[in-house]
């Protein structure tokens, strides 16, 4: 699903066009198209933007404006594994900041950074809706509750 990293740097522009054309009949389709492109190709490359704009009869600026507004939409290929630590208040109350510090001290990664080999990146999220069982994280789409330093080490270490 989140391929397109590592071996195959080719960004399939034709696929973008197909994904966009399949969705033009949806109401307010731009965000749906961008989700589909990112789910399929891993990110929204700058070369995708004129194609989507052309399909929807929008300006490139309008499409880029939407891409840049939403935190989920990436303009670069993602790391193989994305660890998103929740920093909402409920997770703060049970030590979320300790986990952020742990990632920094042990793995040298700050929020928003990726390891140099592109295998793991650390990101933040404000609430995963797991507020009674925090601290929480989402790792490659999987929700993890009652996260502690030891589990975080296990999640990140083999990948670094």
């Amino acid at each position, binding site marked *: 699903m989140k391929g397109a990293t590592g071996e195959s740097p080719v960004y399939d522009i034709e696929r973008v066009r197909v994904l966009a054309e399949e969705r033009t009949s949806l*109401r*307010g*389709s*731009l*965000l*749906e198209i*961008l*989700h589909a492109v990112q789910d399929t190709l891993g990110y929204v490359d700058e070369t995708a933007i004129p194609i989507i704009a052309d399909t929807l009869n929008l300006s490139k600026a*309008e499409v880029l*404006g*939407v891409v840049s*507004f*939403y*935190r*989920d*939409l990436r303009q670069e290929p993602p790391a193989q594994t994305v660890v998103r630590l929740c920093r*909402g*208040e*409920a*997770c*703060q*109350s*049970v030590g979320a900041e300790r986990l952020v510090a742990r990632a920094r001290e042990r793995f040298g990664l700050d929020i928003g950074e990726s390891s140099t080999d592109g295998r793991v990146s650390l990101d933040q*999220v*404000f*609430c*995963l*809706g*797991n*507020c*009674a*069982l*925090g601290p*929480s994280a*989402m790792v490659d*789409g999987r*929700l*993890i*509750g*009652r996260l502690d330093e030891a589990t975080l080490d296990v999640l990140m270490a083999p990948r670094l």
Partner: protein
Amino acid sequence: MATVFVSMDSSARSVGADDVADAIRRAAEVRDLSVTIVRNGSRGMLWLEPLVEVETERGRVAYGPVTIQDVETLVDEGLFVGADHRLSLGSTEEIPWLARQTRYSFELVGLIDPLSPEDYEAHGGLSGLRKAITMQPAEIVELVTESGLRGRGGAGFPTGIKWETVLAAPTEDVKFVCANADEGDSGTFADRMLMEGNPFGLIEGMVIAGLATGATEGFVYVRSEYPDAIATMRTAIGVAHLRGWLGLNILGSHERFELSVRVGAGSYICGEETAMLESLEGRRGMVRAKPPLPAHAGLFERPTVINNVLTLASVPRIVADGPSVYRSFGVGRSRGTQVFQIGGNVARGGVVELPFGVTLGTLVNDFGGGTRSGRPIRAVQVGGPLGAYLPVAAFDVPMDYESFAAIDAMVGHGGVVVFDETVDMARQARFAMEFCAEESCGKCTPCRVGAVRGVEVIDRIIAGDHREANLVLLEDLCDLMASGSLCAMGSLTPMPVRSALTHFGNDFHRLPAALRSDASEPRSR
């Protein structure tokens, strides 16, 4: 043959429910026992997850929290017949934490198989829709108004009045119903649990909203942080179509309603209703000025009902029961129940549905059992990141819209986040500003720029840099943000900040951590 229930709620899964379900399946296979494992929603007793229930002659009995290491002995000691075990909790319905609640909106969550239409109907599902389809739109609106139902998203606007406005609004083609499932407030998870545990309840509520207002198309706007809820809703919508609960000729009538899921993309502000409309239209989630009200000119400038998930999911039963049952709950103008969500540093967190008017202390101490850390409670934030931080002294205040407004707080979406004595409230105030700076859509200057300035000012206060002058400046800034922003993001960010100042002022006057060489130099900015 035994029937075992292991929740597929994402909170339960986050602490190993999938593994426990697998282990039970394998243990049964090895012993050549025939077992049905139902993946239900969560009962809401989240500290007991993974919770395992088994159907017995005495009703369901529960065990929890169960780990995969427990499964072998649990099965050997008679899980499938509901035998006693170290992890026994007895009859699920009689667990005091659950028995003391008034489950109305959450009635079916945890009880049924979320994706079984048979199960839904067997538990009273569709009776609201069957009744509504025989009624005139104005009668449905009247019934909902009469029930006293108010928007559960936080603002508490009377639902019937909103629907009446949409019903009366002329349109040349279409009207819409949008379920706001962009539950971004930290400390809230009831919308998620409802979608994962009773998706047909939301669907039925939306169809009834359509019948009541003349709307024929609907969207459920779900935040991307909820992948399980998205998947469950999509599957349920497919099932509902096949059953004739959606689409053309609903339940054999001439009524129609189309429904689809739309997924957000990581923007908190898209939970604000007009920003959500922009996002649904495929644009940046920028807040719109009101008027026009969405009820007059909402999605694609058409009359639009926008309700929170819990509001809509409460409608089927309100319609089925008639308005008086729901109305009989609650206090003053806050009628009905509220789904409180207890989280953060709390021993027994989860979903507590009770009539409005319960005190904060009852929720946090009686249900919550105090902190998870075992230290004394210092502060409770109610109503999400834009809600007030309250001290233990406020534990006697009844939780209803009006009483909370009177103490400069809000019930909001019912999130209750507990902090123990180690919390630094100046840091929490700073975080409120930081969050606003991160999530502001940028339309209003007081919010976009004010939040950044707020972080800077609080940093100076913490550092002991011209503290008194900066406290005055902070108050001024809060005033400006509260009165000069279009939506709740900018206008309510001062609420957590001011409440921290009011109730925990000492935290802003601590000896600076760094009374070091650089502290006496004023920072220029």
